[in-house]
């Protein structure tokens, strides 16, 4: 009897608790689902909005280098080329510097100097893109035009890379600005990768009589190799999609030019420059298709990067600025 009597009382107490729990569970699930749906909506809405251009040009969009809004002929080659070239140029500068700085911060620097430098590196990443662009227009471009490009033109002008008049703005300026902007990401992620290398690696090398540098080279860099490649890819992902600073210094001309002195255009900067002024539906759809292309490329690069970084030291904690 007593047991039977006890049952309803327990239920009566349990009911409100379950209600609160259920409400909270539904709310939390809804928040997470919002994130998932947002990304899905992103893909769907961009495919939908770029459909007119896909239908009109098909794969030719990716193979044509004509960009003529007046004649409504759109091809993405100049932008793909500009994006790849400027990003490669940026990595060429940023990778040695970034990995060198990471080695210094994780392996070689005295302990007291590490936190302030790591903090300054974070601040480099926190400077807004438009401010890099402003600095690029008024400091970097004149510097290149007056000092760097004439010297390069004179000494290496026989190479097609350094031919042409020195404008200041152009592919070279874009590459340098991009390098400055992605190097803190490469530094921070590489540093995390190096710090994730087990100490037994270092101790073994040091015990064999290796110097600090030899230890770094043999025991640390080799162990963290795939993670470092991941760090570089994360930097590449940033460089591919970087918009404002590049738009302000690259010169914005839709041409495929070999020379680094010549103006160019990137996928992100053509969208930034022409989107608000796109006069026809097809023009707008073509710009959105370029955005979609950029989206797909950055997603692939980032996914690859994350897998590689995870392979060394668990989920990446890239700096968040």
């Amino acid at each position: 009897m007593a047991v039977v009597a006890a049952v309803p009382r327990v239920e009566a107490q349990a009911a409100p608790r379950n209600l609160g729990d259920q409400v909270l569970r539904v709310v939390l699930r809804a928040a997470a689902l919002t994130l998932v749906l947002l990304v899905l909506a992103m893909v769907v809405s961009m495919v939908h909005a770029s459909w007119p251009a896909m239908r009109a040009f098909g794969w030719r969009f990716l193979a044509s280098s004509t960009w003529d809004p007046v004649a409504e002929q759109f091809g993405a080659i100049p932008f793909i080329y500009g994006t790849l070239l400027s990003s490669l140029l940026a990595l060429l500068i940023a990778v040695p510097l970034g990995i060198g700085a990471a080695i210094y911060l994780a392996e070689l620097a005295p302990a007291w100097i590490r936190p302030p430098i790591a903090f300054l590196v974070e601040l480099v990443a926190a400077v807004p893109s438009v401010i890099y662009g402003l600095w690029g227009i008024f400091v970097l471009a004149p510097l290149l035009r007056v000092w760097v490009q004439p010297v390069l033109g004179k000494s290496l002008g026989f190479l097609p890379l350094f031919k042409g008049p020195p404008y200041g703005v152009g592919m070279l300026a874009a590459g340098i600005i991009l390098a400055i902007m992605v190097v803190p990401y490469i530094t921070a992620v590489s540093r995390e990768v190096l710090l994730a290398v087990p100490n037994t690696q270092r101790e073994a090398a040091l015990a064999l009589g290796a110097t600090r540098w030899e230890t770094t080279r043999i025991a640390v860099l080799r162990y963290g190799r795939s993670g470092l490649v991941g760090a570089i890819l994360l930097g590449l992902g940033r460089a591919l999609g970087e918009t404002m600073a590049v738009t302000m210094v690259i010169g914005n001309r839709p041409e495929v030019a070999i020379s680094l002195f010549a103006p160019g255009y990137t996928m992100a900067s053509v969208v930034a420059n022409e989107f608000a002024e796109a006069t026809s539906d097809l023009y707008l759809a073509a710009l959105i298709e370029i955005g979609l292309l950029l989206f797909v490329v950055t997603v692939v690069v980032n996914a690859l990067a994350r897998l590689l970084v995870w392979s060394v030291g668990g989920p990446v904690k890239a700096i968040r600025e």
Partner: protein
Amino acid sequence: MTPRARRALNVVMSWLAAAAAGLVVLPLLLIFAFLLWQGASAVNVDFFTHLPRPVGEVGGGMANAIVGTLMLLALAAALGLPVGILGGLYLAESRDRRLPWTARFLADVLNGVPSIVIGIFAYTVIVLPMRRFSAIAGGFALAVIMLPIVVRTSEELVRLVPASLREAALALGIPQWKVLLRVVLPTARAGIITGVMVAIARVAGETAPLLFTAFGNRFWHQGLDQPIAALPLQIFAYAIAPYDDWHRQAWAGALVLIGLVFVVSFAARVVTSGRFTGVR
């Protein structure tokens, strides 16, 4: 190699690495120096209290852009923070299988998506149906950029709350939802606030996603469904214009913007320092 050569190489490589670290940080100092040199002279009371003057008239300020940026940030926070923090709580607490994995992966994907692409997204889902540029569209774009940062930091910090605390509360017979909202979240609060401020600092300087959502405005905004000025947009517009006075104002705007970003970033550090030493 002789021992002497090995030691020499060690010294050389150490200096090279130190030089690389110096070169990484150098641009920050250069940019800061130029901002102070070019911008400080144009930052005055007028800059904070006046509207932009028409072309050709010297003077005026960016009051509308400063207010606009603050409003866009408030809008973005109002839209993005509840979803972000609750989503993070879900990722840390849920025992489900598929949804947490998917959401975590997509948060990381979203974090890597260029901000200009998010601008296009906001344009297609808000500007096109409304048929006009608006503050709401700009705030939405910034909220989408904030979201993955807030989700992932909240998750990380909720995970750091010791299980013993939770168990103690549950052992007292407190229902689970109350434990989460009254014990777990408050314990992680300082860290979550840091994550929020870092996210705000990150979007405060965003320009690309505002170009065709908030669009910019040379006057005070006329409501949330109308175009609104933003500091980064104004800096961009002034920097590429051919007027010397506008260039000066662009430098001044940049100085104010970077001040805003750095103050929020520093504040984020102060909130956590000392309390949660294990938390970045």
